[in-house]
């Protein structure tokens, strides 16, 4: 695998996760628990999809096959997607959405922070642009973990259940494969072990403050997304997200 090939995959992973989580947030439109949350969810989603676009624009340049970012985002099938299994999990109730968001944000924040020092100037630039937004995302979702964890008895139970439920999807991000190793060696990508440590510390502190029990860090973790093996959810997300691009191919909108 050339560095360029590995980098393309690496960039795609970052972009796909942001895109799919942004898409999940879009599904909340008009259904959030308060108007303020309508705004916040749409705002976070907007940031993520904007970041996805930045990554994909870089990915198509690296691929050099004349595709544009839209084609890359909206005409691949599930096995070609590289998003984390975490972000394709369903919205569930608000605790489920907050848990998913928080675990992602914590990974995202430390990842982008580290990527600001990437030896690849473009990666560093995109990461730096996103970091400001993601700093807010993480603050916001940490707050919600605490609010729901240390709110009422009911919200505590729901928050704990949401965390336990999604936990099995939180480990995948930190399991390095050949691409991760190659990118780290090239000084382009992050040190996953380090990110994992930072993530773990943040999660443990947040959950403790939220009076929640942190699940077993050694628990069995689902994986597959780095090889394009997803959960059954992704196919349905794509069917909806890509309908227009599929039904009216090669159209200008």
């Amino acid at each position, binding site marked *: 695998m050339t560095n360029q090939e590995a980098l393309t995959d690496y960039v795609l992973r970052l972009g796909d996760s942001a895109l799919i989580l942004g898409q999940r947030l879009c599904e909340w439109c008009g259904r959030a628990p308060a108007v303020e*949350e309508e705004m916040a969810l749409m705002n976070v989603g907007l940031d993520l999809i904007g970041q*996805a676009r930045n990554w994909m624009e870089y990915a198509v340049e690296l691929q050099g096959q004349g595709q544009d970012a839209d084609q890359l985002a909206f005409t691949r099938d599930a096995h070609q997607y590289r998003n984390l299994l975490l972000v394709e999990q369903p919205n569930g109730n608000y605790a489920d959405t907050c848990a998913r968001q928080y675990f992602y944000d914590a990974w995202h924040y430390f990842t982008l922070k580290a990527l600001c020092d990437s030896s690849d100037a473009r990666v560093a630039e995109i990461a730096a642009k996103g970091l400001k937004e993601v700093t807010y995302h993480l603050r916001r979702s940490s707050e919600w973990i605490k609010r729901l964890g240390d709110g009422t008895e009911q919200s505590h139970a729901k928050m704990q259940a949401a965390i336990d439920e999604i936990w099995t999807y939180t480990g995948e991000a930190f399991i390095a494969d050949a691409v991760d190793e190659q990118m780290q060696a090239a000084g382009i990508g992050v040190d996953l072990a380090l990110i994992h440590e930072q993530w773990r510390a943040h999660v443990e502190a947040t959950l403790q403050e939220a009076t929640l029990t942190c699940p077993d860090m050694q628990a069995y973790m689902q994986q597959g997304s780095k090889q394009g093996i997803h959960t059954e959810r992704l196919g349905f997300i794509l069917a909806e*997200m890509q309908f227009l691009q599929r039904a009216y191919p090669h159209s200008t909108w």
Partner: protein
Amino acid sequence: MSAEERAFQEKIDAEIKIEAKNWMPEAYRRTLIRQISQHAHSEIVGMLPEGNWVTRAPTFKRKLQLMAKIQDEAGHGLYLYSAMETLGADRDDEIERLHRGEVKYSSIFNYPTLNWADMGTIGWLVDGAAIVNQVALQRTSYGPYSRAMIRICKEESFHQRQGYEILLTMMREGTDEQKAMVQDSINRFWWPSLMMFGPHDSDSPHTGQSMAWKIKRHTNDELRQRFIDQTIPQLEFLGCTVPDPDLKWNEARGHYDFGEIQWEEFYQVLKGNGPCNRERLRTRKNALDEGAWVREAAMVYAKKQQQKQQQNAA
């Protein structure tokens, strides 16, 4: 007329804004609460027809635009609820009343969004019609409402241009199928957009008092005519038509003539028989009901935090 009432009306006549702490007639307050809450609800319910396509937007650019627009609408809702609360009304109460069917939101949102061009049409025609109303309301007599309108109008104009640009792109660079979508969308939204200005002046009993109080500054029919006059040239530039065989320029009047609105449909939708009335209201009601435990938890948490701070301070 009491002295207070006279002073109030004189202020109005002198184009001095009424502010929250000023005396005002109870009917003026009630009319404003009704109108502003209706407007705020419309912003929130108005997110739904767009939310219907936000997961299916065709490009990054369009998806981001639509999300930003929806976010703005939530913001407008919040801003308007605040203006309403300066009149002593309570946001939660008013939302309850909406869900009980006692307050309305703009009937236009009871029509379904059936193709992507509807995202353009809603921006161009629906927001366009709203802006005609709102531009007039920038000069409304109640200060907080007037200021909300000034701010909202700016963003709405931006949305309207974006909506038009969606349609223009489809008409200029699109396939035949895309052009057909645009025309189909205009066909479905044209009459409902005209209905947004409300019944004929002759059937609008409250117009007189609202005009006297300068809550309203123009009649329904005046605004409707203004909207048509400014919209038809844009329509022609698009290369589209409206489903009204009677529409034509009247040189003598200096306005477009147009056909009679199907008021039967207007009143049916108002009565709850529009294609989406039940669904829109249910979606909002479910959102509120299912979010109750979240809002409660946030309140309890805030109280706990406050107590901790007080303890730390002590």
